[in-house]
């Protein structure tokens, strides 16, 4: 494979994968929605879950994006320092988004700030968003793809608390968002919480938290306990599907954390909606790929 062929192949696969993730939800989200839907016993909540399942079925059959808001496209990378196409990756990802936008088709969701016009291609300055993690001694490329919708990006919030406010302050920060903006972000939500030392570390962690498969836990015992407490607490609010009341509120709560300066606690929240369009694909240096977010994908 020449370099040009490799670049074309990588672009093509990523474009098709992004297209696919706009139409089919990942396995873990599908399973969790079923589980939550089965617990509901009011006609209202049941009717909404039924509409969701029917929608996903129709989207697949008719090959259409399942939600009209296909989001701003984001890529969270773990790229081996020895991955042969590291240098080309940024332009490959942009090109892949242009292709997916045309073929899927995706809604045009990239507006240049200040100049305030829609580029019509889903690319712009810094869009698609690319978050890099370089992995030394690896020749693999791991990509999390994400469609960040407007409704589910809106509740996002970060701030720096004083240590005196403690994890009690973190709790209130997270919970308040649930009943203000969270309500309209199409629950059941996936709640990503970042805890770090400043707004940007916390904010990035909160987005990374949304990339974790459902049902995984933070390796720190206390953090894992807090995930569980928040999950139970938010579920007790009973937002239900679409915020119209029900037995539960969330798909899960994920906390990601780093150390902090002794004088501050940086905290951030990012939410994913019921239509949590995340994909996970891993390439080796020969560009063989494995997809573990969705089974049975044919690209």
């Amino acid at each position, binding site marked *: 494979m020449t370099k040009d062929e490799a670049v074309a192949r990588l672009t093509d696969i990523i474009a098709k994968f992004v297209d696919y993730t706009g139409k089919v939800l990942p396995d873990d989200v599908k399973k969790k929605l079923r589980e939550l839907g089965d617990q509901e016993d009011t*006609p*209202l909540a049941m*009717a*909404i879950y*039924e*509409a*969701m399942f*029917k*929608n996903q079925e*129709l*989207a697949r059959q*008719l090959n*259409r*994006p*399942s*939600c*009209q*808001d296909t989001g701003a496209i984001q890529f969270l990378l773990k790229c081996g320092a020895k991955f042969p196409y590291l240098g080309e990756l940024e332009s490959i990802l942009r090109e892949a988004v242009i292709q997916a936008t045309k073929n899927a088709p995706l*809604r045009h969701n990239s507006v240049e700030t200040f100049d305030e016009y829609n580029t019509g291609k889903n690319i712009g300055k810094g869009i698609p968003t690319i978050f890099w993690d370089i992995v030394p001694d690896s020749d693999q490329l791991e990509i999390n793809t994400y469609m960040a919708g407007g*409704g589910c990006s809106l509740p996002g919030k970060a701030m720096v608390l004083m*240590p005196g406010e*403690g*994890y*009690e302050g*973190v*709790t*209130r920060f997270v*919970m*308040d968002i*649930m*009943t203000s903006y969270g*309500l*309209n972000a*199409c629950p059941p939500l996936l709640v990503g919480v970042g805890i770090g030392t400043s707004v940007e570390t916390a904010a990035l962690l909160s987005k990374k938290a949304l990339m974790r498969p459902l049902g995984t836990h933070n390796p720190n015992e*206390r953090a894992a*306990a*807090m995930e569980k*407490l*928040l999950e*139970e*607490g*938010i579920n*007790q*609010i*009973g*937002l239900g*599907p*679409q*915020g*119209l*009341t029900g037995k539960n509120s969330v798909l899960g709560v994920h906390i990601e954390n780093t150390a902090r300066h002794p004088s501050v606690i940086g905290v951030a929240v990012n939410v994913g*909606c*019921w*239509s949590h369009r995340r994909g996970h694909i891993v390439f080796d240096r020969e560009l063989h790929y494995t997809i573990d977010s969705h089974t049975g994908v044919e690209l």
Partner: protein
Amino acid sequence: MAKKILTTPITAEDLADIHVGDIIYLNGHITTCRDVAHRRLIEEGRKLPVDLDGGAILHAGPIIRTLSEDQYEMVSVGPTTSMRMEKFEEEFIKETGVKLIVGKGGMGEGTMRGCRDYKALHAVFPAGCAVVAATCVEKIEEVNWKDLGMPETLWTCKVKEFGPLIVSIDTHGRNLFEENKVTFNQRKEAAIAEICKQVSFIK
């Protein structure tokens, strides 16, 4: 429970025994109508090109495929946040005689008054279910104010069992989202108190 289906033109009597939280469906016609159309009618006093008396509107900006000069196909349509139209909606209901407003999320005091005094409903279509909504559209029958661009154009659609629509404001002065908010906040405070007992990690 039998499916409750409204058919346009809708009368005030049709709405009398419908309450917040009920699930309804729509047969007949619904016209997409959002920000600028509301503004034109209320602020600029222009007459709407569609007769909405007894009719239904949808707060939405659809994706439409043009098949030929005057033939269109609904590809995807999802409700947009209704609250943006709150400022105009009471007047809008009074002026047009519209009987059903469909959107996303709740609306406020004004719309509640409009629905109560002039007999109309606000209902939500589950967001994120754009393909279900699009496939309920049998045909796009009329197109008006195309100068507003695809999302804002008034697309009059013939629909069959369009729904589920969850009634959020009824003709009796009730507003589901506002009522829920009170309960949610009470439950939230209780949950916070419970969690805070167990997260005193800083000692």
